[in-house]
């Protein structure tokens, strides 16, 4: 490989990264807008409608405001970790997008075979996403500890417990997907669901879809699982944060929310495939983003609808309900796959047979 080739390759990678990171950041801004509008609509009020037509410039104004505000670092805080914590929660949220396949394209017929639109079509994609998203705990934990203040530390401890608990249920839920798809590669998992809505994994794995999505909700810390930032904790681990550092946390939170929605669409809702094969003339990316947009709407809908869980209730849901459920479902799926006679039922979804 000559240096020029390497430079070109590096340039392509940089463009690919930019092509994903910039839209994510932009959509985060507008998800906050839609969140306020939708919640307003649910609660029969207006939502933000002052800045720009129908309030569309509101996110930009908010961003500007946060950017101009002073970042206060408490005097007794551990400065290095206090400043590092928001980055530590943002970076995992962004680099997890590296393996997400956004669709398949042959670039208007230039390539012979369709290529998967992902920065890296990693064989371990699913595990990669799990591993990377588990890292976001550190940002929260460090923020709480480095602030050297009581409420943040309580908030971060709660949040860590919550994340760890629901990660387990999430991981086990994904095992059933791996069992059916026979692969950890995200694009292979989508390919295994080709052929219309009946092939989607939400049919055989419906309980896992529910578990995964709700666990995702808890993982991100959205209502009804937003115990980390409740009023009694004065907004939890980011009590002491202000300005851009505070915004970084919400960027990470919304980024993770987008990721969970994308992953749910890819793993359970057929990824970039249309519900009816005839509709596949519409580009796959549109389908994928559409499904994710709907799931993001569900997130917001949850927030407008459900009251917050109490801490023990949340732990109970994670450990005593989701975990046995997922384990049971793994057992059931395994039973179906390996029992002669029963396996003909599940063969329909088994890509690797």
């Amino acid at each position, binding site marked *: 490989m000559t240096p020029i080739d390497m430079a070109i390759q590096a340039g392509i990678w940089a463009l690919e990264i930019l092509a994903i990171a910039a839209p994510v950041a932009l959509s985060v801004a507008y998800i906050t807008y839609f969140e306020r509008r939708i919640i307003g609509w649910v609660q029969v009020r207006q939502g933000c409608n002052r800045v720009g037509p129908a309030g569309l410039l509101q996110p930009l104004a908010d961003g500007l405001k946060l950017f101009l505000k002073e970042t206060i670092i408490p005097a007794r805080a551990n400065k290095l970790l206090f400043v590092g914590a928001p980055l530590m929660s943002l970076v995992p949220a962004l680099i997890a997008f590296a393996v997400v396949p956004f669709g398949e394209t042959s670039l208007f017929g230039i390539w012979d075979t369709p290529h998967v639109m992902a920065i890296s079509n990693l064989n371990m994609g699913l595990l990669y996403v799990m591993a990377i998203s588990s890292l976001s705990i550190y940002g929260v934990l460090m923020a709480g500890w480095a602030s050297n203040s009581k409420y943040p530390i309580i908030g971060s401890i709660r949040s860590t417990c919550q994340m760890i608990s629901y990660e387990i249920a999430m991981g086990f839920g994904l095992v059933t997907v791996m069992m059916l798809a026979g692969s950890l590669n995200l694009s292979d998992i989508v390919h295994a669901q080709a052929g219309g809505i009946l092939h989607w994994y939400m049919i055989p794995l419906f309980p896992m879809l529910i578990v995964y999505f709700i666990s995702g909700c808890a993982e991100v810390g959205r209502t009804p699982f937003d115990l980390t930032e409740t009023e009694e904790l004065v907004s939890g681990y980011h009590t002491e944060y202000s300005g851009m550092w505070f915004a970084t946390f919400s960027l990470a939170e919304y980024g993770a929310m987008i990721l969970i929605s994308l992953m749910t669409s890819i793993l359970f809702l057929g990824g970039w495939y249309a519900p009816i094969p005839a509709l596949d003339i519409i580009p796959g990316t549109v389908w994928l983003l559409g499904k994710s947009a709907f799931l993001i709407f569900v997130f917001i809908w949850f927030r407008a609808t459900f009251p917050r869980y109490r801490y023990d209730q949340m732990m109970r849901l994670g450990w005593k309900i989701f975990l046995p459920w997922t384990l049971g479902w793994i057992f059931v799926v395994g039973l179906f796959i*390996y*029992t*002669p006679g029963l*396996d*003909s039922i599940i*063969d329909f979804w088994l890509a690797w047979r």
Partner: protein
Amino acid sequence: MANVTFPFPFPDHLITLMPEMIVAIMAMFLLLFDVFVAKGSKTTAYLAIATTVAAGVATWSLQGPDPLVAFYGFFVFDSFAVFSKFLIYVATALGMILSLEYMKNEKHIGEYYVLMLFAMLGMMLMVSSNNFVTMYLGLELMALCVYVLVAYQREVLRANEAALKYFILGALSSGMLLYGITFLYGVTGSFDFAVMGEKLAHAEGDATAAVMLGMVFLIAGLGFKVSMAPFHMWTPDAYEGAPTPVTAFMSVAPKVAGFVIFMRIVADLLPALQHEYQSILIGVAVLTIAVGNLAAIAQRNIKRMLAYSTVGHVGFIMMGLIAGSPAGFSGILVYLSIYLVMTMGVFAVIILMRREGIQGELLDDFAGLSKVRPGYALAMGLFMFSMAGIPFLGGFWAKYVVFMAAVEAGHLYLVLYALLFSAVGAFYYLRVVKYIYFDEERVAFNFIESRPMQATVFVTAVTIVFLGLFPDALFELCRQALVGLV
């Protein structure tokens, strides 16, 4: 359609693991079962004891002239494993019997027996392993259970301290063991003892440093587990802090498993390095014998005293390893069997003396035992004489065979040294006898009345006398157990 093929012929191989499977399944069953039994019920305990018996029956029914191998050679079932498994069954069953009364006031007693069964499972796997993978996993399974068992009485401060010390040092020693294994693996590219031994025999000159380093770490790691001296520091604290039945259990069963694996390693892995490991072991044995026997003199607490006495016994057992001959190995088995019986008997008496508030643990507490309970006093006296190695009790023959093997192998000075310290050791054993027979009662005695435990004391005492008079059967049994190993 389903084209599932099992990677190995299903029943043939799994049948070899029948005892292990019985124990594992019963342990998991008891874990659930215990939730439904009434508090204070001993059903779980009796079922756990029955499980050890069932495992014994299964082992007995499986044994044959040829060694069985399962799981791609990761599990062996030879006569050596059978013999050591029986020692482990007996130790575990006796440990459970000793716990019946002692632990009955604990909350959540079910898990206690479950953990004991799992510890037994770990040791069973250890003695059946001929490679580092199974050995290490078995060792960790056993160790993890014993850590928890030591800390079982959570509200007792010294139990916590003991468990913490034991755990930290145990974890350190596991790390050392693993580190040693990685070096040996790096040189040989295998985990199997026999294959590694073959490779080491043909290892070229420049591999020696790595092999030596691996071996040193291996011996240090295993030395921790069987409490060889400089790695014995955890022993007195762990013995003192643990509930007494656990002390009894852990002073016997893990030592059996540890020495069995030591013998397998010495026989299969290290024959090419006989000179090197012998010189290391001689140094360690000299230290172990001295530390064990000298430090025991200063102890006022009988559990601590027995801990140091264990260290001393370990030193004597190591003489068999140093001999490295079939006679030495069978001597180790003889020693372990007799040591098992003596130790269990002693701890049974100690537990029977547990009183409200005061545990019969200080040496003073034994004062005047002969006037109140001559039976117990006699048994205790017999055990102490036997541990000291007074002729025509079991303990004498145990020392005799090991020392003879060492003399035959040409380690006369070491044996003389060991004899000297065994005389020193006789002092503190006989001191207990002095308290029992010649001192006046100071505190009123108050005994637990428990038939199974009294039976244990009786049976162990009779066995010690019997083995002292007719040791030949045991010698023969141990010699036959070694067929196939050396």
